[in-house]
């Protein structure tokens, strides 16, 4: 199916009658996935939104259940259900890949996370291939292709040059049964004066200029737990949580509660391995009290431990942390340093 850029607005407004549709846009100066309405101007030229779409499945604050004691003094616990049909329209391939990592965490290894699963089952991912990766993008090096998003339900690829009217065309393909079924709603917006064969979609030749080599990184790191690199690297880290909060794959959380008299709500919220209190135990002992231990944990988890556990790197090369770290502690520089480290593996 070919879809013209000029038809997008009509399509989005149709889709938003049956689901909550999120699109990349700038809101109050920050780019993120914003709930579509007629007053929202989607911006598909944004390569990576500052905030990743992970909050649609894993909100920064997720109410889990209410509890309290009823009039007879009997304690109760009531789940909070808030899953809705959601379409994320215009996800970049790296963000789609990040959902693959989140699925591993929340849906496998003996325990299914019920609230994640409820949201995940009602999510439709519409991906947009990248034609112009940002200078901080390095997804190729993480085994991704900027123009492919295998897990997405529907993939849009900008197709060749704009036509005579100056209207960009997208080649639309369903990649899952769910995507195929969803396309029925799109039919009335497809370009009828042309066919798929007339267009050449952006090819795999699109590539990030920032490149790192992951060869041997995981294996070397297995022998680098006590390497001086962590002490050196962590000196400039100010242990804020920026990198973890803008990361599409960071998924650590805390569980806390707010109470009103005898009733309360327990919620989970994003937490960060960069924060001191994250691992501090009752009684005061902290297994990761030092800054270097926390920096090591973050990078070991991303580049070594997660791969050992789930068979993939917990970094999709989106470059958000590279761009937003206030002290330019750059994961790609670390990967280079690991590559250069004289460590047998």
């Amino acid at each position, binding site marked *: 199916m070919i879809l013209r850029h000029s038809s997008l607005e009509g399509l989005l407004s149709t889709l938003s009658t049956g689901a909550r549709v999120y699109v990349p846009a700038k809101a109050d100066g920050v780019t993120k996935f914003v709930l579509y309405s007629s007053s929202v101007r989607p911006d598909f030229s944004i390569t990576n939104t500052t*905030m990743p779409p992970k909050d649609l499945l894993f909100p920064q604050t997720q109410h889990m259940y209410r509890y309290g004691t009823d009039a007879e003094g009997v304690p109760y616990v009531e789940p909070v259900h808030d899953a809705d049909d959601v379409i994320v329209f215009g996800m970049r391939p790296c963000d789609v890949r990040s959902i693959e990592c989140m699925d591993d965490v929340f849906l496998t290894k003996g325990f299914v996370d019920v609230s994640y699963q409820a949201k995940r089952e009602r999510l439709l991912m519409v991906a947009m291939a990248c034609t112009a990766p940002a200078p901080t993008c390095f997804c190729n090096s993480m085994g991704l292709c900027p123009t492919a998003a295998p897990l997405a339900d529907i993939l849009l690829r900008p197709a060749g040059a704009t036509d005579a009217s100056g209207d960009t065309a997208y080649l639309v393909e369903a990649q899952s049964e769910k995507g195929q079924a969803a396309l029925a709603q799109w039919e009335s917006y497809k370009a009828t004066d042309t066919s798929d064969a007339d267009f050449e979609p952006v090819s795999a030749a699109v590539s990030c200029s920032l490149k790192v080599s992951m060869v041997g990184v995981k294996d070397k790191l297995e022998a680098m737990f006590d390497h001086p690199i962590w002490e050196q690297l962590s000196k400039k880290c100010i242990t804020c949580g920026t990198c973890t909060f803008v990361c599409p794959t960071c998924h650590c959380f805390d569980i806390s509660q707010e109470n009103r008299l005898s009733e309360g709500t327990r919620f989970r919220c994003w937490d960060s391995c960069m924060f001191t209190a994250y691992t501090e135990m009752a009684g005061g002992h902290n297994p990761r009290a030092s800054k270097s231990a926390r920096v090591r944990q973050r990078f070991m988890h991303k580049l070594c431990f997660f791969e050992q556990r789930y068979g993939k790197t917990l970094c999709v090369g989106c470059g958000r942390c590279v761009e937003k770290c206030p002290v330019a502690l750059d994961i790609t520089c670390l990967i280079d340093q690991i590559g250069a480290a004289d460590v047998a593996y």
Partner: protein
Amino acid sequence: MSLSTAEALTDALREEARRLLAEGTVAVVVGWEAGRFPNQTTPAFISDPEQAQRLVYGDYCVNTLAKYALGEKAAGKVAVCVRGCDSRGINRMIADNQLLRDEVYLLGLPCSGMKDPATGSLLMKCRTCTEHDAVTYDVLLGPATAAGHDGASADSSAGDSEHVSDEQRFTAVLGIEEMAPEKRRALFDAAFNKCIRCYACRKSCPCCTCRECFVDQLRAGWQGKQNNLAENRFYNITRVFHIGDRCIECGECERACPMGLPLMALNRKMVKDLKSLFNADDAGMTEENSAALGRYDLGDLEEFM
């Protein structure tokens, strides 16, 4: 600054750092080195004299370095590259009993304002800076900056003025003060709504040196962990009030903020009110604690008692 000035300052900095490390005067030099991207720099920690050539100085040294002295001082005396902002941060930490003057060796550097490596334009925090050059140092590398900041001196009177005027400094605050209450509320609600509570503002601040921040006092439970407008508002306002009269106006919080919150407008509102109510001194200009709220004189008025 011109390319040749930057190069000359970089050479002087490297030479001084090498000498200080080789002679054993300091254990580590905190400065900047080149990052991966064009014009980008990142904080550098040099303890080997042979590595001193990694140091750079120029228009893109965006990080304020003062706070790193706290983390490094355990290893010995720390040499820190200082401009106006960094040196005021050092003074602030000395006044707050976090640091002894003797624990640092200050390498003074002239500054004409730093630029965003991505856009090449002067950083917001440098546009309203009142002290370009180090207010305290052990050695001054290169001449003091004769003129004002490249950007701040854009108006006609800037030729003879090194400092931005209070009017320029408080432009944002004045604008907000003039707003109708509903509009002002909407402005801050929008800002606090996008706060992700990464705490980069707190962590980058040379005044935020509490061993345990109120945010982390889980037992007291001042700060809920939920991200919502009420909690975000509570965090941001408490942060400003707690810094209170100690803000040195380095602007590092606002630069570090990934969400672009107008943190300096909040900080400067405090600064402005303290000036008008108590004729407060600018913070961090000396090692003395001159903070209006952080000290008392027997002669203080007690009209409210």
